[in-house]
């Protein structure tokens, strides 16, 4: 069906991306498009990966047991980040609540991924509904103002994280051992298992790698989020 859809779409002049929106459950207990990794594997297995990209919905990522940021990153590193369904779920409830996005920590991490990926081919679609007691026309506007402001804040803060540079510098230092010597040979694919084993035996004992600095990194994010 998907191959026929691509064939027909191209025949009538559709030049855009086809999107798959991964979702682990609802209505079924098991679904073929569980998360971005599963959906990308499916598309590659059936030769559809040149025509399809991911439409990542925040609430579907969290239903799959991932963060929103994780599924965005998996899509981006595969060159398949297409569009975003902008909403949020409720981890205490565990179903697809489709709430308007308000969590600025999440929108900041989302926009960090989008900026690093160079943007979307699609956009930010508010696949979100007002809560049942928010039943007036005014509530529809409050909801969109909330969502648009939350993503604007996310954009502002993600840009500040990138301009600040501490996190990106940390990542560069963390993987510095792959920029020269045996590490560079690994990245370039110019080595063998035998050569790597010989390298390890020559060292005899490995020193511990650099600290992960998780708490330091979280404090940088808080610092940038709340400095005003």
């Amino acid at each position, binding site marked *: *069906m998907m191959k026929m859809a691509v064939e027909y779409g191209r025949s009538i002049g559709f030049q*855009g991306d086809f999107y798959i929106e991964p979702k682990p459950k609802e209505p079924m207990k098991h679904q073929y498009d569980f998360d971005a990794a599963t959906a990308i594997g499916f598309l590659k297995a059936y030769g559809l990966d040149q025509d399809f990209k991911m439409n990542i919905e925040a609430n579907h990522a969290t239903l799959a047991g991932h963060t929103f940021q994780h599924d965005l990153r998996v899509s981006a590193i595969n060159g398949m980040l297409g569009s975003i369904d902008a909403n949020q779920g409720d981890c205490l409830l565990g179903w697809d609540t489709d709430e308007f996005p308000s969590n600025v920590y999440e929108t900041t991490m989302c*926009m960090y991924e989008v*900026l690093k990926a160079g943007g979307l081919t699609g956009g*930010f679609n*508010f696949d979100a509904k007002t809560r049942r007691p928010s039943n*007036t026309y005014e509530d529809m506007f*409050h909801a969109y103002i909330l969502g648009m402001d939350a993503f604007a*804040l996310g954009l502002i803060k993600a840009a500040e994280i990138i301009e600040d540079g501490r996190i990106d510098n940390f990542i560069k230092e963390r993987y510095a051992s792959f920029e020269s010597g045996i590490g560079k040979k690994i990245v370039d694919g110019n080595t063998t298992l035998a050569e790597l084993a010989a390298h390890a035996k020559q060292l005899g004992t490995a020193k511990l790698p650099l600290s992960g600095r998780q708490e330091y990194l979280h404090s940088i994010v808080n610092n940038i989020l709340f400095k005003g």
Partner: protein
Amino acid sequence: MSEVFCNIPKIVYEGKESTNPLAFKYYDPNRVILGKTMKEHLPFAMAWWHNLCAAGTDMFGRDTADKSFGAVRKGTMAHAKAKVDAGFEFMQKLGIEYFCFHDVDIAPEADDIKETERRLDEITDYMLVKMKETGIKCLWGTANMFSNPRFMNGAGSTNDADVYCFAAAQIKKALELTVKLGGK
């Protein structure tokens, strides 16, 4: 056509000190961040289904919101057109430049798929007029292949070849409508 959201003004950026509930505190469309405007970074889209169709029904209770938008009877083509009017006014007031839709969001399904497609042609003609008037564009369109009872065992994964063909017909039409509306 009369204004639907009469008491709602155009929503503008007033800044973080504003306490006006009908103003942006952070979304300043023309502010430049890392070389592009916020509007360019954030191509926002309205979801037709939640915003213009969903009225609060869940498994515990009926609708709480009135989404008739002035139409006398719900589920009619007049109601579908009222949603178009309301949707475009809504997007204009918020400065949203795109919308997304499923086929069944924009026109009521008929018993016969041929009549459903005729309704979809009629409503998308009307949407095109509004798009030209306002400059608002279609981000993407899709086919709802889950709400109709025929899809109780799936669409592409159904056990029934006839149902599979109905799913194919909906995908074909949704592609045609998306191309007609210039979806990205």
